[in-house]
Every structure is written in C-alpha cells, then in structure tokens.
C-alpha cells in the first residue's frame, strides 16, 4: 500500500523529522488560502501515486499569488499518467543549497533491510543507481538486531555527506529505519532531503509503502487504506478481498493463483489482445466470490470480453462449475461475453455442467484466451 506524500510526511513529522510547513487543498480556493498562510515561494504538489511527478508537471513552485492560482488550476483535475489529481499539497518552498537521497528498503536477495544514502539527491535515483552505483552508499541491517546506531552514521559518512550536517542526516536515517520497522514498511524514501543555506536538513518529499500483509497489526495504517486507493475498482477489489490490478486493455481476466492469472494476461497479449486487469479470486471459487469477480469485470467500462480460467486442484472441477452456475443464476444474459476454462481434478465433469447458454467453454487455456481475444475484437469493432 502506497501512502500519499502528505500522509507519509505526517508520520515523519510525528517522529521528529523536519518537514516543510504544508496544507492539503482540494480546490483552487483552498490552495490559495493555504498559500496565503504559508507564504512564498510555495510548492503546489499533486497527491497521486505517480513517480516523476515533477517532470510530468505535477509539481510547480509559485512565487506569487497569481502563479499560485494558475498552478493550482493547472494541477487540480489534471491527468497524471492516468490518475486524476484531486488533491494538492501546498508546501512552503525550501531555500536549499544541496539535495540528498535517503532511503530504506528490503533487499530481497539478502533478505535484509538496506539503508541507502546518496549526495546525488533531487534527481531520479534509479538513474543514479544504474549509471553510477557507487554514488549510493548502502548498509544492510540485520533484522534480528535491528539498526545499530553506528550503521546510520557509517552510511552517511560513506556517502560523503558534508561533515557539518552528517549528524543530522544520520539522525534522519535512524528515524526512518525506526519508522520502517514500526510501520511494517516495504520502502521509505526521501528524495530530496534538502540542506538549507543555514545548514538545516529538511525532508522535502516522502515516499512510504506499507506491507499489505502486515496491515492486520497496523490498525492506524489500515485506516488509511481507503484513502490510498486511487481507483474505484481497486477499492471494490479491496472490499471483496481480491488481488486486483487495473490495466489499460479490454479483455477482463479472472483466474485463481497469481502465477496462472499472470500467465493468462501474458497469453491475452501473446494472442494479440490487451488485458484489462489482473484478478485472482484465490482458491475454491465459491459462488459468492465468482459473483463478486464477475461484478468487478462487468462494471469496468473498458472490458469488452472476459476470460475465466480456473485450475481446480484440490477443489474439484464440478464444484467449481456449480459455483459458477450459481453465480450466473441472477443473469438472463451476460453484459459481456465470458469464456470459461476449467482444468484439473474433475474438470471434464465440471465443463459438462457449466451453463453454456450464458458462457463459452474451452478445454485448453490457449483456446480460451484466443476466443476471449476474438470476442473482444468483435465487441470493440
């Protein structure tokens, strides 16, 4: 789960990390009220989960009220890489002389959190990592011991941070690690940490991603989950308890098991179609879950055709078929063509009893996907 910049900064501020003064605004008036209070220069920052907001025009610095109004009008409601900006953070502009990058993330290969500090902050850190990996100092943290204080210092000194601010930056690194651990984060990133002409350090941006699997023990963060959704269908999937990702194509995909659903997406692409979503309904395929899954794909206006791919496994194919039929009992006609493919234990028995008045049925994954792609082409033609 990705937190918005303003949410992450709230958490930072509570932990004692210096952040600029800021206010949230959902309209141009609110933005102007905020900027009147905060003063100039003021940054107006789109609150959407999109990398490279600045380059894409989602962050502007206003030096007077006219600029503030222009920028607020520009940004509020703009489409940023597919997301509509509904909220901006109006933030006091920081007069900085230097920018650092500071991050904490999980190094999967090592199975350990890693601290990262670079003096090449303020730019795309991925590019820095790719082009001059030595410009990023790294320090792995042993998850049993947690962070030793010397490690925060070491990564800061190794990065070559100026001596006069090294202590303050180490203190930010240390606090970020504490937050990483306490909040079950998967990633925390501040890019840039700004160094002002007075040699103060300020966290000028904030990225904080939370491990969804840990929300059960992070009740405060779980409350933010709803605000974190940026798409009504993703919100709905969250309510239904589905793993769901919205994509830009027109073939809706329902399946069980992450690897098999991904494979189904890939095959849609392979056979010339474009997947509209990833939707994993998990094991079993009980009627209620099938009903909800169909609701998801049917209510997505981009979807022209659906492929439903279930590998039965322990759950027998005839039981899966019964669940599907029960879910279909509310329909006289399906709003979009659906092709079903059952496999695994008792798959043939299952396919025999499927309601073929409403559904197309195919025996192989390849055939089912090809037919769904054709259906989509026909509908959208």
């Amino acid at each position, binding site marked *: 789960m990705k937190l918005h910049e303003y949410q992450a900064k709230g958490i930072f501020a509570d932990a004692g990390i210096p952040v600029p003064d800021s206010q949230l605004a959902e309209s141009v008036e609110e933005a102007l009220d905020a900027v009147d209070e905060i003063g100039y220069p003021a940054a107006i920052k789109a609150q959407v989960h999109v*990398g490279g907001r600045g380059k894409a025009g989602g962050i502007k610095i206003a030096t007077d009220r006219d600029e503030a109004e222009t920028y607020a009008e520009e940004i509020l409601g703009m489409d940023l890489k597919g997301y509509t900006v509904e909220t901006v953070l109006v933030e006091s502009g920081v007069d900085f002389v230097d920018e650092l990058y500071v991050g904490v993330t*999980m190094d*999967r*290969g090592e*199975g*350990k*959190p890693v601290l990262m500090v670079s003096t090449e902050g303020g730019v795309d850190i*991925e590019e820095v*990592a*790719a082009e001059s990996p030595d410009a990023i100092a790294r320090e792995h943290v*042993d*998850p*049993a011991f947690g962070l030793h204080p010397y490690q925060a210092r070491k990564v800061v000194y190794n990065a070559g941070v100026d001596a006069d601010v090294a202590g303050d930056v180490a203190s930010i690194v240390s606090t970020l690690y504490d937050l990483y*651990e306490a909040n*079950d984060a*998967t990633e925390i990133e501040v890019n840039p940490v700004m160094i002002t002409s007075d040699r103060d350090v300020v966290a000028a941006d904030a990225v904080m991603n939370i*491990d*969804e*699997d*840990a929300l*059960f*023990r992070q009740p405060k963060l779980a409350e933010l989950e709803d605000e974190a959704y940026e798409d009504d269908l993703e919100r709905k999937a969250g309510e239904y308890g589905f*793993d769901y*990702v919205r*994509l830009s194509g027109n073939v809706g995909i329902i*399946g*069980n*098991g*992450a*690897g*098999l*659903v*991904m*494979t189904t*997406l*890939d*095959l*849609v*692409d*392979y056979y010339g179609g474009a*997947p509209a979503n*990833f939707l*994993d309904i998990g094991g079993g395929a009980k009627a209620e879950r099938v009903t909800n899954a169909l609701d998801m794909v049917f209510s997505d206006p981009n979807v022209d055709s659906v492929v439903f791919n279930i*590998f*039965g*496994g*322990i759950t027998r194919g005839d039981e899966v078929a019964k669940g599907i039929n029960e879910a279909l009992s509310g329909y006289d006609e399906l709003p979009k063509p659906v092709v079903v493919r059952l*496999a*695994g*234990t008792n798959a043939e028995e299952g396919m025999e009893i499927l309601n073929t008045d409403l559904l197309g049925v195919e025996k*192989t*994954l*390849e055939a089912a996907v090809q037919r769904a792609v054709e259906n989509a082409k026909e509908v959208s033609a």
Partner: protein
Amino acid sequence: MSIFVDDDTRVVVQGITGGEGKFHAEQMIEYGTNVVAGAVPGKGGQEAAGVPVYDTVDAAVEAEDANASVIFVPPAFAADAIFEALDTDLDLAVAITEGIPTQDMAKVNKRLGETDTRLLGPNCPGIITPGEAKLGILPGNIFADGNVGLVSRSGTLTYQVVDNLTERGIGQTTAIGIGGDPIIGTSFIDALEAFEADTETDAVVMCGEIGGEDEEQAARFIGEHMDTPVAGFIAGRTAPPGKRMGHAGAIVSGSGTGTAESKIDALNDAGVPVGDTPEEVADHIESFL
C-alpha cells in the same frame, strides 16, 4: 529417486486442528504421506486426521520421530510457527501460509542461516514426490511418477504445467513450489542443485515470475553448473511496474528490475529455452527426453 522428500519422510502438521490443516493432513495421508503427528498449542493429547496432536513441535518430534513439518498457521502466527519448527532440527519445514509480513520473514531468514533445516515457502503449495510423499496442498492426482523435476514460484501455474506434462505421459521425480513471497527459504538454485544431483531427474522445468532476481541468479547457475537440461517459463510479461501481481513477491520495481524480459534474457543466455505458453514448455521438455 527424488529430492527433499520421499516415503521415509515423517511429517508433523502444525495447525492440524484448523480447517485447512485438518483437510490437507487428511489429503496428505490419503496420498500415502507418512504423517505422524500434529502440533497445536493447547490441543495436546487430542487426535486429528487420525494422528496424535502435541502442544509443541518439540514434543511431537520427540514422541513421533518426525523429520519434516508442514505449517498451516494463520499469517499473524506463522513466523512464530516457523521459528518453532526451525528450533527442532527438522530436515524440512514447509510453510504453506500466505500473507506473512515481509519483516517477519526477514527475521526467519536470519534464523535459517543458523540452522540446518530447509524451509520451503512460505506462500507455497508444497512439495510432492509422486507416489511417495506429498507435503502441502498440491492436488496429488495430477502428478505422475517420472523423470522430470519441476520448481516453481507459483501454485496453480505449477499444476497447469504438470497437467500438460502428465497428459503427454511425462511424469515427475519431484515437484516443488518455492513460494511467491519476496523472502523465501528455498531458492531456485537450491532446488536446481538438488535436481542436478538427482540421478533420476533427466530434465527440469523452472517456472519463474516477475520480481526479484532469483531467476537471473538461477540462470547463471544453470549455465555454469548444470548438465541436466532445463526449460523455463516466466509469468508476468505484461505486468506494469510498481504493482503487486497477487504474490507479494511478484512486482516489477520502479527502477525496472525484476522484469520478465530480464529473466527470459538471462535464461536464454544460459541456453534455457523459455516457452511462450505452458504447452511450449512441455514441448521443450519432450524434446529433451
């Protein structure tokens, strides 16, 4: 032969009195697995799935001489259950549970380095040596005894590929789901190394997916250390960056590491043919035999 499990494996089921645990314990027993005990705190002295239940894994291992564990424990308690299993010097612990917090698994991973126990998973379907033992939730009936090893990060995708193989009359030595989480106990390399050493495994299927760099490392391992031919499959070619595709570990990072392309390239570089469809994987394997 086989790797990791066979008919000498003696299994304790952690969480055997829960719905999932009991059902799959019964399924394992029905398949012929040597399930010898269950372990559930507070349920010691009871019986479940026809085997005695102990309060601790320690007591179960002690009393029934178990050497492997299968863990069906809810995510909030699963890491503790894994630590408990690792504390008893088992040969193998299989963690089925999906949804264990990553930071818990980082701690487990640290402990793993201190023990001789192999952990499989978490968030995995388990392991099966057809006709001998099944530890986990895999549907036994789709597997057949044979000479192809299979290792996969995904459950149902494994079934799909196995189904394609079995339908062609190609059986398996052992099939292993290593799990879809970012931090897992047994890597592709661990499994590949064991298959390479197994004299009965004549070819191996490796099903990877987006996220992390395990497949790239495995590709290098295959290129440098394996004579047994390997055919690959990589799921998630169409996954957008920054989105978790069902599995907690299946995510292409913003920086573009963990892409299907990178994995497919690495495998191809190591001489491993990668199928565009599961059927194509079966074609490659058939060509090896």
